[in-house]
């Protein structure tokens, strides 16, 4: 693979003036964001802040309605396929094919990303081992736990060695041990391969633990950006990211952390339950 195309600007993702509306409601409302290459950047914000919509524009799943977005030096409005080739994406829902084994699930994505045939098996094995799924590799994914499914999804997203890994709420709904397992693997893969990671979360610990930079989003805009340490230090000794968020946005970050009252949240919950049923 040739050198990263974004080397000249040093940014893996550049978003300027992004607006995205669903009907009359603006989910993203004038967002400016730079994701430096090689960093782990977290988009932090409550439900409905526009995090997932932003990710979907960056992953080329949603069109750019207004503003400009470049990913790895390429304009998403014009070079969607070229961007997709260099992107790994794990959506919020646990989504693997339960009727396939873990190995089949990863091999499938290796094919979709054109991993050369002679490298394919070795690459799939390598990823399954890195995600600690070697023993379960030939069992149906329908028997996997939530943590295992998420790790399997990381294997799928990483099998083509992407330059940019995008994770939408990677540990939502996982127990603390499974969460640690996911964080651990993301960090290790990032250190080994030097890729850029962009994730969304509404967990404080996740942002603190994983991210070099956090971007606080509120009502479709950027409220503050910086390293977790600096953002907290700016507020004074003993401040938490929660305090930082309250300071910049004037509201709590995660009222109860599982606020499902709004429509989109409810739909997601229904979908996750349906997925859980399907996976058995």
């Amino acid at each position: 693979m040739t050198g990263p195309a974004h080397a000249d600007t040093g940014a893996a993702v550049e978003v300027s003036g992004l607006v995205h509306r669903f009907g009359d409601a603006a989910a993203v409302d004038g967002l400016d964001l730079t994701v430096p290459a090689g960093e782990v950047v977290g988009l932090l914000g409550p439900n409905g802040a526009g995090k997932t919509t932003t990710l979907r524009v960056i992953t080329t799943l949603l069109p750019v309605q207004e503003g400009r977005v470049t990913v790895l030096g390429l304009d998403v409005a014009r070079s969607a396929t070229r961007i997709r080739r260099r992107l790994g994406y794990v959506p919020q829902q646990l989504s693997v094919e339960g009727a396939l084994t873990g190995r089949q699930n990863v091999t499938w994505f290796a094919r979709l990303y054109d991993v050369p045939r002679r490298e394919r098996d070795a690459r799939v094995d390598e990823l399954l081992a890195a995600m600690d799924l070697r023993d379960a590799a030939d069992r149906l994914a329908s028997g996997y736990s939530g943590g295992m499914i998420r790790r399997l999804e990381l294997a799928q997203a990483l099998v083509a060695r992407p330059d940019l890994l995008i994770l939408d709420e990677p540990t939502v709904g996982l127990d603390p041990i499974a969460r640690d397992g996911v964080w651990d693997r993301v960090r290790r893969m990032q250190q080994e391969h030097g890729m850029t990671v962009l994730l969304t979360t509404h967990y404080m610990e996740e942002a603190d633990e994983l991210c070099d930079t956090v971007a606080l989003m509120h009502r479709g805009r950027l409220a503050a950006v910086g390293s977790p340490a600096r953002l907290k230090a700016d507020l004074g000794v003993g401040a938490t990211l929660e305090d930082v968020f309250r300071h910049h946005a004037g509201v709590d970050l995660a009222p109860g952390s599982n606020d499902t009252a709004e429509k989109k949240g409810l739909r997601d919950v229904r979908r996750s339950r349906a997925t859980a049923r399907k996976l058995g």
Partner: protein
Amino acid sequence: MSVAVAPPRASWAEARGSVRTLASRTGALSLVELQKLRHDHTELLTRTVQPLLWLLVFGQVFGRLRAIPTGNVPYLAYLTPGILAQSALFVAIFFGIQIIWDRDAGILTKVMATPTPRQAIVAAKAFAAGVRGLSPVVVLIPVALLLGVGVTANPLKILLAAVAIMLGSGFFACLSMAIAGLAGTRDRLMGFGQVITMPLFFASNALYPIDVMPTWLQVVSRVNPLSYLVDALRGQLVGTPAHLTVDFAVLVGSTVVGIVVAGSLLGRLVR
């Protein structure tokens, strides 16, 4: 890296490349569909019950009535290919549910974020519908033979009939996926499916010849791809005069159009 417009000279190579990508992605996704099918034996069996009833009950009774002019072909022999086509239609017309299901499970979103053409996603589902459309044949043909229908033993003719069934199922699956793209939800898709299934079936030559229909119905029947599937099957399996070239041209053409249209509507599902 600049995003300069590609020089026109490169467009042929690009077109070849995209055809290759389309083929290899369709292959990868079809393989997954086959792997999924292996865990789905009950469905294959339950799907044969309804067409069996059509053959055993409807076919036997109407065969005795001799109410339908089928020339020198016994009614049961006339009906058998129609019921095969019908079972393919019934399997395929709700296939869009699978796309909606994949969307709801987050799988469609993930696949669409990979460098995979939308048409490959649709084509692989159409292929899966084709395989499912074929499965009732394995039960229905032996039953038809037991009932005394003279089904061909020529392997080439059987192969052509199988290809026709796969194409027909593929087309109706694409129609269903296009509706899924427009309808967006499972409930609405089911509703549309219910509404169009029976008209598609009755406005075809599956149960009776086109000649006995009123003129307006003849027109509908002639634009209905199901009629061409039935014609091809009848010609191959029980040896009635058929129009193979036209039949296959219509089936291939409508499947290709179906893949393109359904593929272009797919993006609506992940917005």
